[in-house]
């Protein structure tokens, strides 16, 4: 529909330069330039390398997104950008571009939260988000369970990793197995040919007294590394496929178990899964199985929308416009540790009902049933 907001979104919180264009909840373009190959030899994302790549890729990626979308910059209703959380220097490149673009075009600017964008992107795949929405976000940077009654104003963290993010654990185990970086896709591939029950790796934070919705992958990582080293020390061959499958099973078992439990506890009958690890085939399959058993509807965007991209930022920006949320000011800054509760960064001049205050009181249990 032509009266839905047309928004361009810019994402630079890590190593992908993403520019997306959406109209309302319709995806028009999703252009991504990645510097992942430049990081591979370091076994992780090097912030300065990522920032340099963002600066080089930005203008061509904006041009490509507009061309793919078949729209003119003049017709945009707003420019959205990831204001945080993420790598400080990388975020700053995107924020600088978005501000200059919005200012020069005379369009409103929306600095938005990266995590809320990961949730909102599902609107492009499955239509408007149910309210409330339960979201499991898993990537190299985040592993959290979030409950949102309105993606533009209310995101409540139920739990998060207390040490490594799930994606980091994949990267580290891939490194121990000499499979390269990033670890997620290659472990997924090997695991398909392995036995997930071959080795009983520990499930972190699943004891009766452990926090119900928090995650821990550090113990698992150490346990897998020790198991591999013991094999090597004994001069035995490491069964890469079985290790991959058993490790992956331990991660996705905990993730899906806790997500389903959160839905039950909060009386939410659907679950969305986002972030780069949501591209993992076993996570998708196990989540589908367990949600089906529990009578929960599962929403997982296609893999390309799960990893970092500009379309997710545009999706949240469009929702901000549609709901009349305040635009950001020209002094918008990048905030590497922007709390997930701050879904966007409204300008001072507009008066703000945001910050850490919530419209909904937390801590009363089944608020949304």
């Amino acid at each position: 529909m032509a009266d839905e907001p047309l928004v361009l979104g810019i994402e630079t919180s890590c190593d992908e330069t993403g520019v997306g264009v959406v109209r309302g909840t319709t995806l028009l373009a999703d252009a991504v330039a990645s510097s992942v190959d430049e990081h591979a030899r370091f076994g992780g994302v090097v912030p300065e390398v990522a920032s340099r790549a963002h600066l080089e890729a930005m203008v061509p990626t904006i041009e490509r997104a507009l061309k793919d979308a078949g729209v003119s910059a003049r017709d945009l209703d707003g420019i959205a950008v990831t204001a945080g959380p993420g790598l400080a220097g990388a975020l700053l490149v995107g924020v600088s571009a978005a501000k200059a673009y919005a200012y020069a075009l005379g369009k409103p600017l929306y600095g938005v939260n990266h995590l809320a964008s990961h949730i909102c992107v599902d609107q492009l795949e499955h239509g408007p988000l149910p309210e409330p929405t339960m979201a499991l976000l898993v990537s190299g940077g985040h592993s959290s369970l979030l409950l949102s009654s309105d993606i533009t104003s209310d995101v409540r963290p139920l739990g998060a990793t207390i040490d490594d993010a799930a994606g980091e654990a994949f990267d580290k185990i891939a490194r121990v197995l000499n499979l390269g970086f990033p670890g997620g896709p290659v472990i997924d591939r090997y695991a398909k040919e392995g036995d997930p029950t071959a080795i009983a790796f520990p499930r972190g934070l699943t004891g009766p007294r452990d926090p119900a919705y928090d995650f821990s992958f550090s113990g698992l990582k150490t346990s897998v590394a020790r198991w591999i080293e013991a094999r090597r020390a004994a001069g035995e061959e490491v069964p890469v496929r079985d290790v991959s499958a058993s490790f992956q099973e331990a991660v996705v078992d905990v993730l899906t178990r806790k997500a389903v439990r959160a839905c039950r506890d909060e009386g939410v009958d659907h679950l969305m899964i986002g972030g780069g690890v949501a591209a993992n085939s076993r996570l998708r399959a196990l989540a589908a199985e367990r949600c089906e058993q529990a009578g929960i509807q599962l929403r997982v965007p296609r893999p390309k929308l799960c990893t970092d991209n500009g379309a997710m930022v545009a999706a949240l920006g469009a929702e901000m416009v549609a709901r009349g949320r305040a635009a950001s000011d020209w002094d918008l800054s990048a905030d590497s540790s922007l709390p997930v509760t701050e879904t966007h960064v409204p300008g001072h001049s507009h008066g703000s009902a945001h910050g850490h205050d919530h419209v909904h009181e937390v801590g009363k249990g089944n608020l949304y049933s």
Partner: protein
Amino acid sequence: MLLLALDTATPAVTVALHDGSDVVASSSQVDARRHGELLLPAVDRVLAEAGTRIDAVTAVAVGMGPGPYTGLRVGLMTADTFGLALGVPVYGVCTLDALAYAAEDIEGAFVVATDARRKEVYWARYDDTRTRVTEPAVDRPADIADAVAGLPAVGAGALLYPDTFPRAYGPEHVSAAALAALAVERLAAGVELDPPRPLYLRRPDAQVPKNYKVVTPK
């Protein structure tokens, strides 16, 4: 013509507007940690002061550094994106050249040196305010003492290291007014200006920080 000039390669966030014959408005603020926040409001102020709007701008000139990367990129990214949105050319100017151009009181050869942090300076030698004779470089002051011996020097890098630069003068930081004037002079003379590319001069630190991406609030 209406040329918008900006530079974020030194601790100064500096913006100026030049109409082809004069600088019509300018702003300079020194705050090395807030380039990203300060630049756009400064552009807005300078345009308002000149009584014009961004769509009247016909060219953009930007300092390419060398300078600390995070701040440097703010200016370059902003200039690039202005160019894209407005459909106007974006020219790069070496930040040291703009500092040299402002050093009108110095006769003869001199050195420009800015603070590169990590006990180093970004520097270059000039025969006069318009003529650079060495490529911009980054070095420890003690290592270039011979190369700059006897020469007066301008910039914060010179003022910081009096052992190497005993005859150090201001201006400390670059001003976009000087950068704009230099760009306009070069354009008028038919000199081809550089494309806007960052002069990093150092390779990136290839260090993956521990827990580099754990950003989710606990």
